[in-house]
């Protein structure tokens, strides 16, 4: 592990091309211990792809990934459990690691779903399922948590609660978190560093900096950034509907 600077994973100018089309290009970022990095951007902007590159899913990427830990907890964006496989919450908790009952109870209590431990996954609501997935990811006390829209389907108050929990966890476990969200507002308070993606890095910085950025406003609309931006920079490109960059 690179101890001096606490870096867990570092992406150096990475990109991925599939079927002659760049899914994402020129992304550099790093996740450090105890820090939360949030990727935001519209649909198809390459957020999940970037996270998967960081996880090492793709072999034929441009640039390189430096990974300094293998203890990773992951909440994928989409997970559908086949009905042919009978699975209880408890079975899911034990999926990748053999955990003691105590640890399982503790994690489920943290995300507020301890009472569902013996329930079948097929009977959970979307929000409950997300909480279980989050509990599973944190239960093995990972160095790096990769959370791909971890609060989808959770109601608004629950959403804020869970983001607060994620923030708490990053401090308590001293783990780094790579968080994906499509909404800056709810993650604002919990985030140390924001990377705004749209096929490439549009802008990055602290949440308040990004909120003021004109590219962010162009992507999410004026309303999305409640604070009036003082700083503005010139656009040298536009995006086509599929997110491709076109020079003006």
């Amino acid at each position, binding site marked *: 592990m690179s101890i001096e600077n606490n870096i867990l994973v570092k992406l150096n100018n990475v990109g991925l091309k599939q079927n002659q089309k760049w899914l994402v290009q020129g992304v550099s970022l790093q996740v450090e211990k105890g820090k939360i990095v949030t990727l935001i951007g519209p649909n198809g902007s390459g957020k999940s792809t970037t996270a998967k590159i960081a996880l090492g899913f793709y072999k034929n990427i441009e640039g390189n990934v430096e990974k300094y830990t293998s203890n990773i907890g*992951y909440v994928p964006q989409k997970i559908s459990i086949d009905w042919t496989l*009978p699975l209880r919450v408890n079975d899911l908790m034990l999926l990748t690691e053999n955990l003691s009952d105590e640890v399982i109870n503790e994690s489920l209590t943290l995300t507020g779903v301890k009472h569902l431990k013996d329930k079948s996954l097929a009977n959970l609501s979307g929000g409950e399922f997300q909480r279980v997935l989050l509990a599973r990811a944190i239960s093995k006390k990972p160095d790096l948590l990769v959370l791909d829209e971890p609060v989808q389907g959770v109601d608004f108050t629950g959403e804020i609660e869970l983001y607060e929990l994620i923030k708490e966890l990053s401090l308590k476990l001293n783990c780094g978190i790579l968080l994906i969200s499509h909404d800056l507002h709810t993650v604002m308070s919990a985030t140390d560093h924001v990377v705004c993606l749209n096929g490439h890095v549009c802008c990055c910085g602290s949440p308040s900096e990004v909120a003021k950025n004109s590219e962010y406003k162009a992507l999410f609309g004026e309303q999305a950034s409640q604070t009036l931006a003082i700083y503005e920079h010139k656009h040298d490109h536009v995006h086509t509907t599929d997110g491709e960059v076109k020079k003006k």
Partner: protein
Amino acid sequence: MLDDFFIRALVAGIGIAFVAGPLGCFVVWRRLSYFGDTLAHSALLGVTIAYSLEFNIAVSIFLISSVIALILIQLQRKTNLPSDALLGLLAHSSLAVGLVVIGFLTFIRFDIMGLLFGDILAVNKKDLFIIWFGGALILITLKIIWKPLFASTVNYELAEAEGLNPDRAKAVFTVLLAAIIAISIKLVGVLLITGMLIIPTAMARNLSDNPQKMVIFSIIGGLLSVFIGLFSSLEFNTPSGPSIIAAALVLFIFSLLKVKQTIQLKN
């Protein structure tokens, strides 16, 4: 004791039921029943090769099934045909080629019905050794790859992200599938092996709410099918393989009663 053909068939059947239960669960969970069928069909070709080269049948079937699995992977990569079409292509063409080769081998007398549907009279002591020793190896290997295989069955990306190497587990599982087909061909025959893998498992699904239970119930279902099937085969002089599978079907139908009850309870 093992001198009695019926006892030998029972011992063979028990061994196969223990292996078919857990493997069958993964076949159902991973939706591989047609894949299993394809491997089993190709086994006939393996038998003919074994006879013509005077080679061990189980080893020959195992090798041919593995080759067919590799060919399938290549075809999936290189053609635009859907998987089920490729599986049908391989299953029936290898079955056909196997039967054509048998036609050429006029100097050997084949019991084709026995190959297709199993023949308990054909189970000898050497087969028992292969079934129990091979079966133990299959189960030990499955135990070793259980975690990555199961995790990637639930979600491939999750298993990969957390460093479990799902591709290796999948490759090993394919080999295990070829292996169980190789060891169980004499008892149930090439056309019915997939039934032995799937029907007790389907019954178990109706009775279980978690994966461990499903594995245990499918082993129990397999054992009961072997007992009931073989005894009725002896009693009514019916072919062994179809009798075992028919017994499994009866158990499955009984398990549906339980499903009906649960649905009524829910309403």
